[in-house]
């Protein structure tokens, strides 16, 4: 059984002008020890998926349908009180901006100790020793001296290391990392990714890595889910999604990323932009921008279908569909 099962998860935001459906029947699993990357452009719903799983949706957002199960137990319908011990102990979180994640009024050691004592039975002295070990493990130099330093005394990269320690210190089984390196410079980003990879591997932690950076995903994830307009449009092993994308959107997305390896005259571009939530087209949400659009895409919404090594929500891969012949060659 998978560690995390997300099953037809739907998130809605009631507004004065009607209900906006921000996540629309999103389903995926994360196995024990697996790193699942979630990519997509701004507004695709990738951060919202993480927030919904961990029970941190901003009101008026609400889970309107579907289930989230951790180890077979439903966690989407728990009360705040019953969710609190799960958050931190079972599911850790790393957010984009390390400055807002840490409390500026408390020393980093205090924050680590507090988190560990909230979830694990530890004496003050043990918790402090363990906090020092965690700071050492995430690569803070002179951890014993710096444990009583405040967040502002650390640089951005060091702060993000502290945040990682904070997310992992109660030894959760799943970590949701939402754009953990976006606020950092490239040389620091490489250090943080390597650290995150090593720690989660050592502790057997599963990771849901949310980012807009395909490069980070390519390097870190085992499988990747590509999101578009509140739905997963493709999910599969990272190599297949990057090298032989099946969904026309994924294909366009990969082509639009400038490469370091070679210079091309023109980048492939997907014209237009992702639809707003109040104007999602009928049928496949990608149909106005899709180069391979045909009749059925305007009328029916595709579910995930097997497409080579990955699954894609695209009618090109429906064997019963009266598809144009390109489907066979592309798959």
């Amino acid at each position, binding site marked *: 059984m998978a560690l995390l099962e997300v099953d037809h998860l739907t998130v809605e935001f009631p507004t004065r002008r009607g209900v906006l459906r921000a996540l629309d029947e999103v389903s995926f699993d994360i196995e024990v020890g697996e790193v699942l990357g979630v990519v997509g*452009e*701004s507004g695709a719903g990738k951060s919202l998926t993480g927030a919904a799983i961990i029970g941190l949706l901003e009101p008026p957002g609400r889970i309107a349908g579907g289930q989230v199960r951790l180890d077979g137990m439903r966690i989407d319908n728990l009360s705040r009180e019953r969710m609190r011990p799960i958050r931190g102990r079972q599911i850790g979180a790393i957010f984009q901006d390390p400055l807002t994640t840490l409390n500026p009024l408390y020393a980093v050691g205090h924050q680590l100790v507090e988190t560990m004592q909230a979830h694990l039975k530890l004496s003050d002295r043990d918790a402090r020793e363990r906090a020092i070990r965690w700071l050492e493990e995430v690569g803070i130099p002179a951890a014993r001296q710096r444990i009583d330093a405040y967040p502002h005394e650390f*640089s951005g*990269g*060091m702060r993000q290391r502290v945040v990682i320690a904070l997310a992992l210190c109660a030894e959760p089984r799943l970590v949701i990392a939402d754009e953990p390196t976006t606020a950092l*410079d*490239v*040389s*620091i*980003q*490489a*250090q943080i*990714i*390597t650290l995150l*990879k090593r720690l989660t591997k050592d502790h057997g932690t599963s990771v849901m890595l949310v980012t*807009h*950076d*395909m*490069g*980070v995903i*390519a*390097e*870190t994830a085992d499988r990747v889910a590509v999101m578009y307009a509140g739905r997963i449009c493709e999910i599969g092993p*990272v*190599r297949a999604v*990057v*090298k032989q994308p099946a969904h026309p959107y994924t294909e*366009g*997305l*990969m*082509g*639009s*990323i*400038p*490469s*370091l*390896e070679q*210079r*091309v005259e*023109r*980048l*492939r*571009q*997907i*014209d237009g*932009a992702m639809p707003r939530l109040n104007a999602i087209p009928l049928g496949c949400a990608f149909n106005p921008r899709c180069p391979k659009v045909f009749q059925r895409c305007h009328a029916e919404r595709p579910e995930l279908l097997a497409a080579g090594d990955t699954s894609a929500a695209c009618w090109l891969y429906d064997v019963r569909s009266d598809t144009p012949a390109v489907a066979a060659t592309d798959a």
Partner: protein
Amino acid sequence: MRDGAEDFAAPMLEAIGVSRSFDVSKPWLQRTLTREGRLLLRAVDDISFVIPRGTTLSLVGESGCGKSTVARMAVGLYAPSEGQIIFEGQPLSAARAQPAMRRRMNMIFQDPYASLNPHWRVRDIVAEPIRAFGLLSSYADIAGRVAALLTQVGLAPADGEKFPHEFSGGQRQRISIARALSSEPEFLVCDEPTSALDVSVQAQILNLMRDLQVRLGLTYLFISHNLAVVRHMSDRLGVMYLGRIVELGPGEAVFRTPRHPYTRLLLEAIPDLDMVGKSRTPVGGEVPSPIDPPPGCTFHPRCPLANARCRVEKPAHTRVAAAQGEVLVACHAVEEGRDGA
């Protein structure tokens, strides 16, 4: 020949030994009470470069390396503390004093949300430089020109009636480009023009900028922290670290045969689509504070090749031949031939 200088016939813009310091001292009273001196931050330290007409020079580097300060100096928003910037053969300050010269340069900013006035209609935003420079006077002429500019950047003439909030980030950046083009400039400074945009939209904007360069013969100074974007856009490339250009040369030469240890570190550090399943050893350390830079070569605390000389002596630029042309590298190890290349 001057350190770091190159020869190009009739360049569009030339920077000669340019530095810029900012006063980051505490207030006078506090300074007096605590007996502290003034504190100067040297954001840009003695840099020289040339941008030939019709080409793109990119400056790349991490936060705080001074690349945006260079961009602002190149259009005259900051004056250099030392050194000189020459635009079309004239000192920049003299060129900026003449409207006819001033209209030939313009700038595209990073944040398309902050750089457009939310109270103005798009047609007024785009028309402002035309009116300011008195390029056209009749209402009909200006409206026609604005419509043509909007079409040129891939928007509809009818979009001119709308306000900026009605557009997405990518469309707003198109509006910024239309505004920058409306004074018919020849030289554009682009400070991180796509870093606020999603990748598929970034591709649209980068393609548009290249198309416009070919069609209008524009010269770009392109500032970015994203090396892949820089590789796509630039003819020539300067890599900046703590206010200095550590490597400068033809883009392909720098990407194919990087010589400076910092350039190699940067290229090594970037996660790339081709990295699936591979792992690597990242270089440790962080960029030091520009207020108190290390002595000698500012990169020496992180450099695998650093020795005693690097810790005391600031490296001058060494000329290195590459297949694509000459590259300037500010590194003792390269000069002494102990970089293993």
